[in-house]
Structures are given as structure tokens and as C-alpha cells.
């Protein structure tokens, strides 16, 4: 890697424009503009999966992935709070299996807050947010152990997952759990598709909180994201056109490479 350590003027402008669009659409939405979001099946399934655990009277397992505190994990915790609120309304227990010690206090705090927001603070049990292990495969094995011993009915896996993903989902499947998984990084998606009931792919993962909560702030952000994606497509189209016309190494490549 290396190389690009600081932005050039092109990046500064591009970044400022992208941020401005997202923030502006958030603010517009907060003023009450109605926004549309298309159906995302994997996310619609969350409610159904929580309902199944309630019906069976068994707990739910949630894993926020392996990453330490970063954007992926924070989004996972956002989804966790939503699921806790759903489950708390039905008095269904949720066990959270944590790998990163730094994520542990944040998850614990989010869980407590979510139970309070749902009006069921008495359901919150601190020991249900569990640190399992920071070692990737010890985490995998330990989490499978929790699934089996607690007889979970539903597994939610949202966050940054790596090779251990298949250990979790294949065992979850063998135990008969309903599984919904999501990971922004594409590498583990094939295994989720092969073993889970519903899978949230790529950017659907970041659309999750908006889709689930329908908070104006978040739906507004989603609209802004779509506009920025359109800009990115335009940028790629211009780049392709320039490469076709001028050959590789034209000015846009240079600018995006940090030169200029």
C-alpha cells in the first residue's frame, strides 16, 4: 500500500461535495420530507426471526463480528439496539457474543439503553452481553458452545466476519436456528448465502438502520448516499471514457492517485 498519505485538492473538493450532499439530505429529511426506501428482504426477515424465537420461548444470539470499534462494528451495534427493542417488547432474551474487549463495554451500554428505551429495563441482564474470546477460533468455538447450551432459536450475525463465519453458521444450522447474517465485506457472503436463511449484502448492511427504524435522519442519509453513488458512477463513466479516448494514465487517474 503506502503512497497516499495526504489528500490533494481534487480529493478535498470531491470529499467536501460528498459530505455536503449527505449532510444536506439528512437535514432536509429532518425537516419532514418523506423518503422512499425499497424493500430489503434480509432486513424484513429480522422481525420474523425475532418472532420465531418468541414463539419457541428460546433466546436469540447476536454477534457483532470480530472487528474492534470501527464503522462496521458501530453499525452492527445500531442493528443490535433495534433487535433488542423488538425482542424486549416480546420479552425474548438476547445473548450478545463479543470478541473485542473494546467493543464489550460499548455493547453492554447499548444493550442497557435499548432495554430502557423499550420500557423493559427489568429484562436487562448484564451477563447476557458476553465477552467470549479475542482469539478468532476460540471465539468461533465458544460462540457455538453458547448456541448449543442456550438452545438459541435465532442467530443474528452482523459485523465484520472472517474465516470463522462458516463455523458459526454451519453449527447454527445444524442446531436448527433461523439465521440472518450481514457483512459489508464480500468475502464471507458466499458462506452466509449457503448456510443462512437471509443474508444482507454489501451496502444493504449500512442501509439497515434507516430501513429498520425509519428515522428521518437515517432515511435522509440514505437518499444522500444514493446521490453520492450516482456521482461515483458518473466519475467512473468519465474515467472509462477518458481511458478509451486517451489511453491509461490520464489526468483523472493521476488526481485520484494523489498526484496533481
Amino acid at each position, binding site marked *: 500500500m503506502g503512497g497516499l498519505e495526504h489528500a490533494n485538492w481534487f480529493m478535498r473538493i470531491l*470529499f467536501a461535495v460528498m459530505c455536503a450532499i449527505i449532510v444536506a439530505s439528512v437535514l432536509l429529511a429532518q425537516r419532514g420530507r418523506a423518503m422512499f426506501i425499497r424493500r430489503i428482504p434480509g432486513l424484513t426477515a429480522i422481525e420474523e426471526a425475532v418472532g420465531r424465537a418468541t414463539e419457541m420461548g428460546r433466546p436469540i444470539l447476536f454477534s457483532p463480528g470480530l472487528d474492534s470499534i470501527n464503522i462496521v462494528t458501530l*453499525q452492527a451495534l445500531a442493528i443490535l439496539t433495534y433487535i433488542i427493542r423488538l425482542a424486549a417488547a416480546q420479552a425474548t432474551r438476547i445473548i450478545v457474543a463479543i470478541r473485542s474487549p473494546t467493543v464489550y463495554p460499548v455493547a453492554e451500554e447499548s444493550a442497557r439503553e435499548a432495554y430502557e428505551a423499550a420500557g423493559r429495563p427489568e429484562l436487562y441482564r448484564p451477563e447476557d452481553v458476553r465477552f467470549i474470546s479475542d482469539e478468532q477460533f476460540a471465539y468461533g468455538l465458544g460462540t457455538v458452545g453458547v448456541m448449543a447450551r442456550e438452545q438459541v432459536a435465532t442467530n443474528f450475525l452482523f459485523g465484520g466476519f472472517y474465516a470463522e463465519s462458516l463455523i458459526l453458521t454451519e453449527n447454527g444450522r445444524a442446531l436448527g436456528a433461523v439465521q440472518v447474517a450481514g457483512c459489508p465485506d464480500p468475502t464471507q457472503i458466499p458462506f452466509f448465502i449457503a448456510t443462512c436463511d437471509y443474508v444482507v449484502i454489501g451496502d444493504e448492511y449500512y442501509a439497515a*438502520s434507516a430501513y429498520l427504524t425509519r428515522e428521518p435522519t437515517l432515511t435522509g442519509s440514505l437518499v444522500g448516499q444514493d446521490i453520492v453513488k450516482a456521482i461515483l458512477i458518473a466519475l467512473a463513466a468519465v474515467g472509462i471514457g477518458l481511458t478509451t479516448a486517451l489511453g491509461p494514465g490520464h489526468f483523472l487517474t493521476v488526481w485520484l492517485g494523489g498526484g496533481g
Partner: protein
Amino acid sequence: MALLRAVWSLFQPAPNRGVLLAAIVAAAILSVFILYALHRTLGPRGRRWLIAVVTFIAGLFFGLEFFWPVKGEPPKNFLTDWIEPVSTMIAVIGAFTVGLGIYSLCQVHGRNVAQRRPGWHNSLTFFLAMLAMLAFGLWEHYLHLPQPLPKVVPWQKGIYEILFNGLFAPLQAATFSLLAFYIASAAYRAFRIRTAEAALMMAAAFIVMLGQVPFGAWLTSSIPVDAGWAFFRIELLGEWVMRWLNMPAQRGIVFGIAIGALAMSLRIWLSLERGTFFTEQS
């Protein structure tokens, strides 16, 4: 005794330790006092505001260093020299959360042992394994220092070997290798031509898998390498699938998540995130 004294000597501060200790204690008392004062004076709104400000400044610091104009060789701006120490500081602060993780584990397993719940002996094993690794791991570490501690017990090295190379590493490898079984059974179960999507997935997996082993190459080896239709030799077809079908799709996903993550970063940086985490109250 000799051992304890040697360990103790490792933790001795440099000369003139009185001044250093005084500074440390003073700084500690001062920060506790500041935190206490904040706790007493700030109301719920003030606290929320302070948290938002800390979040904003932390994000600004790391973001601004990248975008602020740079000068000189190597290129630098006024924040560049601070990135490394601040990152280290944050890593060190984060390291203290390890205690919370261990506390969580001890809470769950301690209760199992104390209440003699079913499987409590497993929880006991957990404690034994943790303490053994802790003791012999630290011992091993200090044996490798420039001036090793006196070798009090001859079998220390052997026990560490058993714990690390006999249990820890093989458990890691064995758990990792379970994936071979899981991937085989997942492939068998998932790749059915029930839907167009599953059929496409299966076809791609099929070609790539065959292209990876010499046996697959043998199947299409009758196609000459220099013929125009050499494209259909399975190892070349597999490589083509990876490069020209898999790669652009992955890139499409990456573009999407780049923007999604950017929006998420912006929202939490500006404390705009709503309906998630702990932004509701307090």
C-alpha cells in the same frame, strides 16, 4: 525469594523516582478531581454536549490530518507529528478494556462454579487454563529478557511448551480445519439448481473449483494452448471467472459500502445518528 526480587527489580523506576512518583500521583489526583467536578456541575444536557464535543474532536483530529495541506519533505502539516503518539495513546487506553472482558468471562464461569450448575467442571477448567497460561506465559516472557530471571524450576519451559504448542496452537489449527468439512457440506446443500440465482452461483463455483486442481486441467487438456478457443480450458476459464466476473462485482460492492460507511461515519461524527446506540436519553 530470589525470583521475587528479580521480578521486582524489573519494575523499579529510574533514579530520582520520588519526583516522578509525585508527578504521577499529582496528575492522578488532579484528573480524578476534574472528573468529579464535571460530574457534579454538568446536567444531562451538558454531559450529552461534552460527549458530542469529544466525539467531534477525536474525529476531526484524524480526518483533518489527511485533508489539511502539507508542506516539505516528507510532506507534513501541523497535525502529522501528533498522529502516531495519539494513536498509541488511544491503543493504550483501549488495552485497559481487557480487564472488562476478563471480568465478563469470570462472571459467567464463576457463577457456574459457585452454584455448581450443570457443566461447572468445564468452567473450572476454564479458570485453570487461563491461570496456567497467564502464569507460564509471563514466566516465559521474563525468561527471555536480556537478563533472565533465575531458573528456579526446571520444568517451566516444558509446561509452557505443552500449553502453547501442545494445546493452544493445535486447538487453533484444528478449529480452523473444521472449515474443510463445513465448506464441503455447505457446497453440497446450497448448490442446487432450484432458482436461477443458485444455478449461477453453482456454475461459477464449479468452474473455479475445477480450475484449481490439476485434475480439472486434465479434463480440458485436449484443447491446444495456442488455439483461439483455449479460453475454454478450465484453468483459464476459472481464472477468467475470477478476474472478469468476480472482480467487477466485488468492486461494485466496495463502491457501495464505501459510501454507506462514509455516511455512517459522518452521522456518528456529528452526533446525528438517531434511533440507535445510546443517543436516546441521559
